[in-house]
């Protein structure tokens, strides 16, 4: 059964090919069938494989499938090969499962778009690339998926390419992530040159044996990989592309820019965790990046007016949590949060998409309002998603996964109070902005008319995801609340070399207090949001209209000025140089030579006067010169 592994990515790829070559000719029903069906088959195969993997774990809790040798140079033999362990399986499951739901959702959501086929082609290609990414057994193959998802992200953000702003957003996404990718590529060079392989397992072993802890080389390599991870996952300082990426259709935002692709960075670090563990500096860097990002994004999310941008910033922020978890060595907590986040964030996006769809592409929250009556299913699912995002205690998955991270941020050997505090403030912020969104969009007076209600293909995925957002948390409960460790045990097979730091440090009494703090924090956030945005909206406005307030508001809304900064420092100088040198200065040099030659020609031509006396004079001059040369040399 495990041998079917290679087919998991193949189905979406076949779907892509069919859609690419016959997309123009096939009827929409077939297109939908191919587009969503290929992912569905893939999801089914994944569950078969998962079943086999869990019931009958392969040796070493990892399954390795080599298709062929890709390149072979000297001792370097990267293969086209897949590697399945718990980590990859969870990722693949989420990618295919959530992916399938989103595909189904898209059938209706994109149903009237004239580029239906292109949409599904890109989506299928994305799923293929993402699966390659998560199943790759070496970093080079991972890089195929890594850049492949980047390409699909670009294609889908710019899906409505007739709108220049969308194109710009797409380009920005590609370029910014490419910057990270390039840093990562340099990391690969370092790894190949130093360790001679890119096979993840081999690499980890060699890193441990050749570099040992606290090695500068390990730090360097880990930081370079981190560069790639922050690019893809929208973390500081490369987070600027993600909010703009919302220009794509909403299912794209759900699948690529919330559930799967943007967590690739998390996956990468988890995959190479051995390397990171060799360097406490790198670990610290990951944690700090995560912590700062979650705060920054949280504040930015607070002031957005576009519902998708709120969700985008919240995605950045939540991935910040995952990075924080990674940085403190809470590997399985990070993956746990990844999984729950995939469910509830996909849900939120899809639900938001339902709203947007119903209001004829209206994304501004302040033009919504009162929707809970008109779109009850959407409202309730959205509310569940919001609760999970905000981490409302006990009832939802988000609480458990986030709690695990908060606890680890404090208790792990890499953790600290400051990290916890940041994460805690972030949690409060999360719940404020989440419920701000809920209150503004769904409550209050209706400012817009619902044009058409979503159909079943939209609602069913919502309901499934909502259910998952609620129950997924119960597979991993803190030891003082049922102590279920299904997930971390399962994950432990992938992280066994690392071990879980959080548990070893745990002091029994402390954890409960932190859980209470977390719960209180999120509930307080809901209250604050209720006060400012539903009960007493004027107070929020007056707060924002003070000079400091409006400056802060603007500052946060523009994502802390990163865009402007990058524009000044990178974009404009580059444009300037390219514009100045458009005609190629070097060419000017050669043109100057050519010009000088032609000038000489004209001057010399003047000497050819056609007058015999002038010619005779030159004969004379020449003879004098030769005389001179011979006589007075």
């Amino acid at each position: 059964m495990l041998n079917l592994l290679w087919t998991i990515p193949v189905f979406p790829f076949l779907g892509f090919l069919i859609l690419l070559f016959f997309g123009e000719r096939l009827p929409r029903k077939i297109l939908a069938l191919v587009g969503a069906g290929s992912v569905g088959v893939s999801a089914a195969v994944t569950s078969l494989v998962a079943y086999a993997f869990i019931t009958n774990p392969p040796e070493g809790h990892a399954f390795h499938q080599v298709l062929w040798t890709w390149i072979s140079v000297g001792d370097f033999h990267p293969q086209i090969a897949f590697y399945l362990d718990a980590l990859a399986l969870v990722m693949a499951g989420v990618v295919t499962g959530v992916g399938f739901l989103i595909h189904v959702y898209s059938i209706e959501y994109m149903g009237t778009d004239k580029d239906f086929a292109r949409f599904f082609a890109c989506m299928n290609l994305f799923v293929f690339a993402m699966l390659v990414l998560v199943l790759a057994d070496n970093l080079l193959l991972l890089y195929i998926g890594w850049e492949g998802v980047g390409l699909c992200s670009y294609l889908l953000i710019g899906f409505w390419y007739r709108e220049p702003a969308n194109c710009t957003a797409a380009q920005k996404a590609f370029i910014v992530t490419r910057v990270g990718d390039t840093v990562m590529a340099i990391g690969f060079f370092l790894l190949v040159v130093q360790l001679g392989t890119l096979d993840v397992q081999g690499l980890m072993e060699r890193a441990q044996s050749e570099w040992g802890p606290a090695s500068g080389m390990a730090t360097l390599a880990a930081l370079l990989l981190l560069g790639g991870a922050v690019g893809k996952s929208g973390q500081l300082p490369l987070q600027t592309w993600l909010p703009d990426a919302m220009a794509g259709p909403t299912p794209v935002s759900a699948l690529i820019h919330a559930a799967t692709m943007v967590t690739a960075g998390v996956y990468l670090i988890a995959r190479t965790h051995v390397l990171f563990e060799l360097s406490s500096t790198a670990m610290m860097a990951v944690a700090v990046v995560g912590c700062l990002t979650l705060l920054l994004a949280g504040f930015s999310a607070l002031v957005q007016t576009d519902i998708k941008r709120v969700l985008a910033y919240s995605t950045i922020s939540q991935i910040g949590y995952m990075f924080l978890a990674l940085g403190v060595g809470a590997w399985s907590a990070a993956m746990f949060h990844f999984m729950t986040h995939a469910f509830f964030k996909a849900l939120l996006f899809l639900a938001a998409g339902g709203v947007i769809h119903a209001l004829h592409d209206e994304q501004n929250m302040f033009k919504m309002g009162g929707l809970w009556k008109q779109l009850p299913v959407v409202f309730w699912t959205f509310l569940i998603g919001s609760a999970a995002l905000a981490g409302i205690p006990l009832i939802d998955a988000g609480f458990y996964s986030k709690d695990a991270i908060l606890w680890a941020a404090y208790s792990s050997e890499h953790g600290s109070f400051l990290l916890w505090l940041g994460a805690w403030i972030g949690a409060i912020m999360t719940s404020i902005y989440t419920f701000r969104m809920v209150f503004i969009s769904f409550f209050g007076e209706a400012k817009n008319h619902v044009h058409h209600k979503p159909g079943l293909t939209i609602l069913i995925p919502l309901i499934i995801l909502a259910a998952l957002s609620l129950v997924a948390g119960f597979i991993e409960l803190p030891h003082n609340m049922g102590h279920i460790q299904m997930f971390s045990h399962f994950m432990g097979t992938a992280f066994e070399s690392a071990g879980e730091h959080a548990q070893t440090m745990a002091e029994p009494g402390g954890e409960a207090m932190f859980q209470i703090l977390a719960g209180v924090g999120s509930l307080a956030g809901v209250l604050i949001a209720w006060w400012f945005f539903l009960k007493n909206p004027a107070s929020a406005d007056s707060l924002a209209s003070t000079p400091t307030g409006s400056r802060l508001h603007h500052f946060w809304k523009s994502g802390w000025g990163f865009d402007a900064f990058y524009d000044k420092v990178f974009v404009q100088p580059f444009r300037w140089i390219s514009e100045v040198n458009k005609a190629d200065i070097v060419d000017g040099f050669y043109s100057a030579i050519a010009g000088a030659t032609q000038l000489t020609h004209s001057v010399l031509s003047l000497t050819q006067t056609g007058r015999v006396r002038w010619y005779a004079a030159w004969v004379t001059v020449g003879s004098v010169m030769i005389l001179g040369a011979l006589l007075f040399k």
Partner: protein
Amino acid sequence: MTVLPVNGGLVLAAGLFAIGLLGVLVRRNLLYTLMCVEIMMNAAGLAFVVAGAKWGQPDGQVFFIFILTVAAAEVAVGLALVNQIYRRFHTLDNDSTSSMRG
């Protein structure tokens, strides 16, 4: 003492040559040009005679005869051409025979 007059002959020849050359350079009338060329050739001839005298050989004078012949032939052709030029351009100004240039 005997060398000096011989060298003197050479100097004279050189002077004549220079005069002829200068004439070519400054005179515009083609006839004068031809005459000046003639002077140059004869200057060279004189130099040969002087040199022959230095070595006590007849070769110098023989050569002078060659030169005379050549000069005569050249002038003959030259005058014929001058004739043609006058018919065609109605001038003997050699600066004006410069339709080809550049």
